[in-house]
């Protein structure tokens, strides 16, 4: 007779040992079971020792494993305990006990319906966090591929264009192919909005390479995407864990990969396939009544937080594959109330980093991915085909030569023209600044033309310079990239040379007609700065945008308000500058047809 004695071990192997691997590959029934063999997990193990075996000097037999991640507040277990069904309750109890000894909460994420029911009976908090789509390969028709292709036209088109999907072994492919796939994976990761996840969401396509199955799409001989499927040993099913495509791949690449992988897995005798959990899918029925507020919040996030994570789009994507059934997945917390400690534990486990690091990484990633040019591109007029922006940011300087030169000259002039208080030297201001009194007395002489030109490179103080340069670099720079240097230089110099004299003449004439005396102050007012050139370019910039009329109106309105607020009629010269730029752009690129 064999007498079984249960022992627990808190051994926590960093990487799954052979013993754990064998156990998981034998008893793993969760879709994430095998994923727990990735690095980064600790293991809570349960042994059964046999008297006869001990007499013979034999070792203990591993009967249960819980893979988990330790965070400052909680032990976050990856899925259900991997053991025989009758041992699950016992394992959960002991796992929780062990965690409580060191003041930690226990969280199981994601866990099955059966385990959730068990945990509820034990008085734990259970919350439905999403749904898992399952495609039963035993019930789908043999022509499943044709059916899918019929339904998903993007995949059908790609298939018709000659894209093929094949199974491959990463250990057999050439180095060039492997490097190509690595580059696709790296590009894909870079293009993701969210920061890389840890825990069960790690993207490690080449981990457990002997266990996984790989499929790739070849389009005209080139690899454009690949898929890794990880087994669910107990049910002979597969979880399509890594679905990676090149950002330049044509539409339908991932759909075709999934369809072909399903078809090939069916042919190879698999029972079921899952595409992974769709998080925060709206909860219905009785379950909804259990945590009304919690589910209301999760529903709101599902509907409105797609900018943060594609909750809805991922659900819709998976739903396209006509799943056999959607199985709910749960979160179990050993604490009676799901509070800050549990939330922090989950966040730490999911991201694998402290919250400050997560926030900093997310901020810098968003900053690196933010593309002002791409945002502006969306608002460009459809009546003009503009230039394509350079692929590398370093080439922006090459593309915006004039703006680079003008920026450099403005900084250089500023450095030479300021005094110790960082203000423009009075003598420079007096000699090179533009004033109507100075200009009108002598007329169009070389000296005056020089003043008009040089005054545009001078600035009163650092704030004045920084504000003008920001507009120059970002908006005029963008204009130069999309419209070319000729237009920018033309607008800039016409704006600089004509705006001030035209404004002075117009304002003086207007005041004369309405018999108002502006006083000597108006005629002696000195103007410096590159803003006239910049505003002239802004006028041209508006012409390149959709709803240019509205933009021009807002710009002019802003200038008038500004002039009124600072009680400075000379500020209206920006109005003239905008008009000049607009006229130059309209002359060069008339919008003959309304295509917007």
């Amino acid at each position, binding site marked *: 007779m064999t007498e079984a004695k249960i022992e627990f071990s808190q051994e926590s192997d960093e990487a799954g040992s052979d013993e754990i691997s064998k156990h998981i590959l034998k008893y793993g029934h969760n879709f994430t079971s095998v994923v727990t063999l990735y690095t980064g997990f600790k293991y809570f193990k349960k042994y059964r020792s046999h008297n006869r075996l001990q007499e013979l000097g034999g070792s203990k037999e591993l009967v249960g494993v819980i893979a988990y991640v330790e965070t400052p507040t909680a032990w976050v277990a990856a899925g259900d305990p991997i053991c025989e069904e009758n041992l699950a309750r016992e394992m959960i109890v002991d796992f929780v006990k062990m965690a409580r000894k060191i003041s930690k909460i226990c969280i199981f994420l994601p866990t099955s319906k059966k385990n959730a029911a068990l945990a509820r009976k034990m008085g734990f908090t259970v919350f439905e966090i999403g749904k898992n789509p399952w495609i039963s390969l035993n019930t789908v028709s043999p022509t499943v591929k044709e059916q899918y292709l019929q339904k998903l036209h993007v995949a059908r088109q790609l298939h018709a264009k000659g894209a093929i999907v094949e199974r491959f072994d990463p250990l057999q492919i050439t180095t060039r192919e492997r490097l190509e796939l690595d580059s696709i994976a790296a590009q894909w990761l870079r293009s993701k909005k969210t920061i890389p996840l840890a825990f069960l969401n790690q993207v490690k396509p080449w981990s457990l390479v002997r266990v996984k199955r790989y499929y790739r799409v070849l389009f005209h001989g080139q690899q454009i995407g690949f898929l890794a499927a990880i087994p669910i040993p107990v049910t002979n099913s597969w979880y399509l864990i890594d679905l990676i495509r090149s950002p330049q791949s044509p539409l339908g690449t991932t759909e075709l990969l999934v369809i072909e992988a399903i078809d090939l897995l069916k042919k190879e005798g698999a029972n079921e396939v899952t595409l992974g959990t769709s998080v925060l899918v709206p909860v219905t029925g009785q379950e909804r009544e259990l945590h009304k507020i919690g589910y209301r919040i999760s529903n709101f996030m599902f509907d409105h937080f797609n900018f943060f994570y594609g909750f809805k789009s991922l659900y819709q994507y998976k739903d396209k594959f006509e799943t056999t059934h959607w199985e709910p997945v749960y979160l179990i917390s050993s604490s009676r109330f799901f509070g800050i400690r549990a939330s922090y534990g989950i966040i730490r486990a999911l991201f694998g980093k402290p919250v400050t690091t997560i926030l900093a990484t997310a901020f810098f990633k968003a900053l690196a991915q933010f593309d002002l040019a791409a945002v502006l591109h969306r608002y460009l007029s459809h009546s003009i085909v503009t230039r394509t922006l*350079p692929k590398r940011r370093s080439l922006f300087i090459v593309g915006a030569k004039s703006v680079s030169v003008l920026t450099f000259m403005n900084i250089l002039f500023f450095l030479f023209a300021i005094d110790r208080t960082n203000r423009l030297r009075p003598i420079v201001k007096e000699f090179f600044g533009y004033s109507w009194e100075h200009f009108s007395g002598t007329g169009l002489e070389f000296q005056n033309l020089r003043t008009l030109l040089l005054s545009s490179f001078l600035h009163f103080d650092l704030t004045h310079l920084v504000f003008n340069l920001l507009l120059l670099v970002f908006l005029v720079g963008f204009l130069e990239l999309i419209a070319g240097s000729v237009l920018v230089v033309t607008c800039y110099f016409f704006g600089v040379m004509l705006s001030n004299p035209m404004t002075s003449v117009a304002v003086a004439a207007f005041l004369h007609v309405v018999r108002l005396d502006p006083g000597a102050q108006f005629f002696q007012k000195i103007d410096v700065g590159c803003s006239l050139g910049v505003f002239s370019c802004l006028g041209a910039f508006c012409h*390149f945008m959709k709803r240019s009329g509205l933009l021009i109106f807002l710009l002019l309105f802003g200038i008038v308000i500004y002039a009124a607020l600072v009680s400075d009629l000379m500020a209206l010269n920006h109005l003239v500058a905008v008009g000049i730029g607009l006229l130059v752009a309209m002359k060069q690129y008339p919008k003959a047809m309304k295509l917007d």
Partner: protein
Amino acid sequence: MVAIILEENNHTRLVLTKMLSVLGYESVLSSSHIDEVCFYISQNLNRVKLILSASSVDDGPDFPLSRLVIQNRELDLTPMVYIQNESHFYSQARHPNPLSRIDDTLTKPFIVKDLKASIVRAHQRRAALRNTILILGNQLHRENAIEAMYDSQDSTHWKEVLSADTFESFKAAVLKGGFRVGSILIAPEFLSHQLVAWLRLFRRSPHGIETPIAFLSQDPGLAHEIRPHCDLFVSDPKTVALKMGMWRQLLLNLSRRLLHGWQLRDLLATAKDKIKSGDVGSAKKNLKQALALDSTRWEAHELEGILAEKSGKTEAAIESFKTELGLQPFAPLPYLKLIQLASVSDRDRFITSAAVYCPHHPQIQALIGQAKVSRP
């Protein structure tokens, strides 16, 4: 009409698609992938009328796009416009393309007017490569054509004259000349049922649509069967001096018809639309431009006549319809219009001419019947 766009930027592709739709392309297929574009082209070989290729997309080390365009004879007539970014690094500049077949280059930024002008230039350059005249005639016809070609070298683009004196050798010459055959002349002596049947099919092919065909006779009896397939009808004058003048003029007309074909078709289609919508001013402008490019385009004279009639200018309308009949005596509409507009004394003359040139047209037949009844 299908236009293909190879461009990397989504926004630019969208704008180009809109512009091409405005320019009358029924279907615009675009992609940022060279392979996808090659697929689109190979699926629509006979329908692709324009290829726009952007400089920012690499044609690959094997230049698959250029290779595809060069290898398919169906694309011989399709112009390729290359869109370039002035100040960026281009793939084409990095890997000079020895196979490149670019008909025109367009630099960004540009508006729809510039795109249209570029397409016109590209069509003209493509048409200018079709510099061979094929004559189905005798030795004398060939000699006359060669002499006229030498005489009018400055004003036409013709460089070679091929001739055939049997229907079989004519068919072989069309095959051999291929895309380079820019025009076909047919002498009345060589007219046959076989030839008419062949022309009917040829005129439906992309090559046939773009190839002007002239029949060297205005004799209604001879031209009756071939009438729907020819663009020009000229009578052989008796004297040598007149003969050379006629040949030179014919070659000039055919050259203009070929080189400005796309632009003229576009102008006439626009004018027709404008007349329908009642925009007389724009229609007049379009017709003026069309006639400046090719004053022998009888369709333009017909539209001019219709426009004049609508504006109440009867004299001008009569003049336009008469000019049209001088160029194309087999068109029934000018006869009908002239019979309607001309004075009673002239009406009989036009009915008689119509009975000779368009005897089978039902309306003309009815008019002839009425005239017989009214005359004692």
